[in-house]
């Protein structure tokens, strides 16, 4: 169950489509220059990339239904080249968009309550959340009503549309962090204190050139104060964030430079003032939004046991399917990481197929994960075999969730004008080197993340193994980092030493993995062994 627009939401999105249509018209007519138009098109998610315009469509907190998914497939066919790319912020990107067609594309998206609002630009971006929201047993509440409240609050916020830099917020509601919450500009963990719901607020995380883990700024903000508090956080940033240097303009730099204590104090002062303005919506509004997220009408008394006699199905079951809070149900992870394929890409046909699976088997709901995979959140166990079969037929049944071939990779130099090196071929080579399924399972959980430049859209700092592509005198070069994590055991990876060429990096990864296997204790993941033994054994193995 998910949020449904009312007439107000629809009117706002429709007005935005017409505004952008007018802005495009003015740009094509030469009434505004590219310099003037660029921030406007970025606020509508439209980049000028290596090959064409790239459009980033918002998938609010990673949640969508089959109708929306079918439109995404239709957009891929009609306006693009037959595929889309799911991103590390739960959105979808199209790489071959024409500026002159973009207004019509946005109009089509608006018919299914979708848009590209604020998916780029120095404004508040897509609010991300836990891909298992509403299905996981460990959440104190579904975080998505809060994400929806924040989405509305942040949309066309008149004070915060020209921030020093982009602003990313994540909301989760469990101790297990499935959304890399601590690596966001603002991370909120919903918790209960003496039965009262509130948010633990972290400010100043981020990746990019200077990765930082967000310090806790407030251990408990009551739910009814949350928007005022976040408004205060943003106002302090808008006023005091650096504007002299684009690489020092994120809030993490401000919090780091003035210190968390001073930032906390300034926010507290501003919050005391903002709270008098009455900007928090009433409980009735929260309840209205929450009502959209009530659990689906699950069937009671469904079978818990699953027939495992198909060995391929059993392998997929063990790796990609996670427990659901409702008896008889399960959470299905669809891997968009076929061996040798492009991480996060899905063809229009595959998108349509996943939409159909959602409609028939998951109460018409899908999620996009920040690991560039898709989730069917509510599948009855008795339907798992049918789901797996359909996925197999479409090449989407790779049983590699959280294994070494479940790679997060940015588009890199094959697509992105900011990149210094290609990232996708490296992902393909590594996945191919480790293609053997049994070998992957033996290695176990290993989150490998690749960025094609220092902007770190591949989240390499948060990889158990991270790879950063750089330009070394005009030649692509790859640095290796170890020991990062975006989960609740958050940590930033450390570089091993000198970089490698595109073949050397694959060998270095393999040596790293083999070193882990030699040194590991029972039950230790790669990252656990690394944390126990340190960098030295790995350096020795890699550099000899």
């Amino acid at each position, binding site marked *: 169950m998910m949020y449904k627009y009312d007439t107000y939401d629809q009117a706002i999105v429709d007005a935005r489509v017409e505004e952008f249509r007018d802005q495009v018209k003015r740009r094509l007519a030469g009434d505004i220059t590219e310099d003037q138009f660029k921030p406007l098109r970025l606020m509508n998610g439209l980049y000028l990339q290596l090959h064409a315009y790239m459009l980033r469509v918002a998938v609010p907190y990673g949640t969508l239904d089959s109708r929306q998914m079918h439109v995404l497939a239709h957009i891929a066919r009609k306006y693009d080249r037959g595929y889309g790319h799911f991103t590390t912020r739960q959105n979808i990107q199209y790489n*071959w968009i024409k500026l002159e067609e973009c207004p019509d594309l946005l109009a089509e998206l608006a018919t299914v309550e979708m848009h590209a609002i604020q998916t780029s630009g120095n404004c508040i971006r897509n609010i991300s959340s836990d891909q298992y929201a509403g299905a996981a047993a460990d959440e104190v509440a579904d975080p998505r009503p809060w994400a929806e409240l924040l989405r509305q609050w942040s949309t066309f916020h008149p004070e915060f549309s020209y921030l020093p830099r982009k602003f990313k917020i994540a909301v989760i509601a469990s101790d297990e962090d499935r959304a890399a919450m601590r690596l966001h500009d603002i991370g909120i963990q919903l918790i209960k204190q003496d039965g009262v719901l509130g948010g633990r607020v972290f400010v100043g995380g981020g990746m990019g050139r200077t990765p930082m883990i967000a310090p806790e700024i407030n251990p408990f903000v009551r739910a009814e104060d949350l928007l005022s508090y976040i408004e205060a956080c943003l106002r302090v940033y808008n006023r005091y964030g650096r504007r002299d240097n684009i690489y020092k303009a994120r809030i993490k730099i401000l919090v780091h430079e003035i210190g968390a204590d001073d930032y906390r104090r300034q926010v507290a002062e501003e919050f005391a003032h903002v709270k008098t303005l009455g900007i928090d919506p009433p409980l009735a509004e929260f309840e209205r939004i929450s009502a959209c997220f009530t659990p689906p009408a699950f069937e009671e008394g469904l079978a818990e046991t699953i027939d495992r006699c198909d060995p391929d199905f059993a392998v997929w079951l063990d790796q990609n399917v996670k427990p659901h809070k409702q008896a008889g149900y399960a959470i299905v992870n669809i891997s968009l990481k076929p061996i040798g394929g492009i991480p996060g890409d899905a063809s229009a046909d595959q998108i349509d197929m996943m939409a159909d699976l959602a409609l028939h088997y998951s109460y018409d709901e899908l999620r996009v994960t920040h690991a560039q995979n898709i989730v069917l959140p509510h599948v009855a166990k008795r339907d798992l075999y049918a789901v797996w079969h359909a996925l197999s037929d479409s090449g989407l049944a790779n049983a590699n969730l959280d294994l070494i071939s479940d790679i997060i990779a940015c588009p890199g130099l094959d697509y992105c004008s900011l990149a210094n090196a290609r990232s996708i071929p490296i992902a393909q080579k590594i996945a191919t080197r480790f293609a053997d399924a049994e070998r992957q399972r033996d290695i176990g959980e290993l989150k490998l993340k690749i960025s094609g430049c220092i902007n770190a859209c591949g989240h390499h700092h948060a990889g158990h193994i991270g790879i950063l592509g750089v330009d070394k005198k005009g030649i692509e070069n790859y640095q290796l980092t170890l020991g990062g994590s975006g989960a609740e055991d958050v940590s930033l990876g450390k570089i091993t030493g000198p970089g490698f060429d595109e073949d050397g990096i694959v060998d270095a990864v393999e040596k790293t993995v083999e070193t882990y296997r030699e040194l590991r204790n029972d039950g230790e993941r790669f990252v656990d062994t690394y944390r126990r033994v340190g960098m030295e054994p790995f350096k020795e193995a890699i550099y000899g």
Partner: protein
Amino acid sequence: MKILTGNDLASGAVTWWTGKDWSLHVEAAVDVGEHGEGVLAAEEGARRVNAPYIIEAVPTPEGPRPAHIKDRVRALGPTVRPDLTLKPADPAAGDWVI
């Protein structure tokens, strides 16, 4: 040699200055010598190109080869999707980029 490149304003397609107009094919790009800035200003002002810039290229029998890999990727298309490039049937096209 110095050549000019940019994107078509309306379509976003990568284009190269031929001396009189903008082509999709880097083979048609001409050496602008020291006159690049003037051409850029005029062409961008007239909206016949968007966000153009000057790059170094090496003359080869097949035409200019941009000095930087980024512009070679722009010239051909993504190395990981040969089917989406300007030379889908040419298995050696990727080598030209890299």
